[in-house]
């Protein structure tokens, strides 16, 4: 069934290489996109709980916009619409970016900003779940509001939400496949190409699917490891997110 991977495509490369190159783009999108999402998400999430009404309202606006438009439509907005709305020179420059990058950067920004809205809501929930006494104690010690956020509130909120961030990590790597709609040859796109070139659809799709499943497992183990690494001694362990491939691979997760 997987012998298709060891046949050569029209460019002389093995289909396995096609698939791996797709995997590379998928990983690059997911990994860099995640850090964009995390950075914006923490800022916006903290902004949601700001005492300043303007900041709170702007953060809310961000979340509502990026959460309530399908990721596919956002992909089109970044790829087709944004260059038209930019000043002519800049727009032309964006449109003339060489092949993979012309699709990669819009996809990256799309996935980063979209996932950021979801991360922001988790961060906000984490902050709101902290006991009131933490902020009071920081204030009573004379810490500024910014320092209170930076040293007391955010570090605790992030630890609290690691299990729910797991599903956002899984979300962004799954959404990387949406980038195929603007022509990025990531994993799913490569699987489809192989299928169209060879008519060995089953083998092509199964190979990509197995890679996705392994990625899910890796993402899950990584988050468990992060959870354990940042676990605060003397507190009860957090409830881990559910293992994606329950009992299929490896031993039980949580320590």
């Amino acid at each position, binding site marked *: 069934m997987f012998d298709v991977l060891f046949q050569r495509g029209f460019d002389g490369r093995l289909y396995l290489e096609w698939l791996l190159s797709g995997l590379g783009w998928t990983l690059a999108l997911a990994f860099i996109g995640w850090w964009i999402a995390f950075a914006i998400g923490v800022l916006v999430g903290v902004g949601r709980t700001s005492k300043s009404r303007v900041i709170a309202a702007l953060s809310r606006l961000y979340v*509502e*916009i990026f*959460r*309530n*438009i*399908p*990721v*596919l*439509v*956002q992909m*089109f*907005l970044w790829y*087709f*619409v944004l260059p*038209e*709305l930019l000043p002519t020179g800049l727009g032309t420059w964006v449109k003339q970016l060489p092949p993979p990058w012309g699709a990669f950067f819009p996809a990256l920004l799309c996935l980063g900003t979209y996932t950021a809205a979801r991360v922001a809501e988790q961060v906000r929930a984490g902050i709101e779940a902290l006991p009131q006494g933490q902020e009071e104690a920081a204030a009573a010690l004379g810490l500024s509001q910014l320092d209170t956020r930076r040293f007391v509130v955010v570090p605790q909120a992030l630890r609290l939400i690691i299990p729910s961030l797991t599903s956002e990590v*899984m979300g962004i790597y*799954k*959404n*990387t*496949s*949406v980038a*195929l*709609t603007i022509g990025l040859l990531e994993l*799913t796109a490569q*699987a*489809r190409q192989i*299928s169209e070139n060879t008519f060995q*659809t*089953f083998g092509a*799709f199964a190979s*990509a*699917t197995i890679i*996705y*499943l392994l*990625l*899910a*497992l890796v993402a899950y183990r990584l988050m468990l490891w992060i959870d354990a690494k940042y676990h605060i001694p003397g507190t009860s362990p957090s409830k881990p997110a*559910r*293992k*994606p*491939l*329950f*009992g*299929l691979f490896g031993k039980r997760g949580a320590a």
Partner: protein
Amino acid sequence: MNGLDFSVVADALPYLWKGLQFSLTLTVVAFAAGLVLGVALALVQHLEVPVLSPLAKVYVAIMRSIPLIMVLFWFFFLVPLIIGAMMNSGRPVPIGGLWTAIITFSLFEAAYYSEIIRVGLRSVNKGQYEAAKALSLSTATTYRSIVLPQVFRITSPIILNQTIILFQDTSLVYVLSLTDLTGAASKIAQLNGTLVEMYLFIALVYLVICTSASQLVAVLRKRTRIATTR
């Protein structure tokens, strides 16, 4: 920024409306079918039914681990084959885009709904099961009349939020060239070169629908919170 012509949107409205109807139909049917199947998947795991329980676990895990577009490709490849085999026709039997999409989304969403229900089932107080047993109710009656109504009450905001995501996800049938709202907009956009106007317009439509829906869910969440606090 100059030269945007939103009159093309007005001309396209009837076609876009048909696309939106497709999106909504797909959402509603996949919601109903997915929820029924999701409850079944959750119950099988909760009751630890032999054989079925691990199968359900694996099914849910796989569905939740791969991208929806990959699932769509799989189903559009497999469903005609399977139906062909079931009808002994010896060749794939295509059943049309809407039906294949409905089957795909129902089965896909079932995995997500089942996780919500499963967590809901675990959150029901143990005393409820014991009380039902004490009243010598059958397992079926216990779940149908006592446990599930409570689970639905607790989880309804999460289920509805998941359904808003489902509605957004229906846009992905674009990859199969079906004519949902996004597909309709893209077809017109490519026909007369109005990508900017069309995509901005449907973005607004999705934004309005999803924001209103999530506001409704927020109101509901507040109400259930009051109803469940003792």
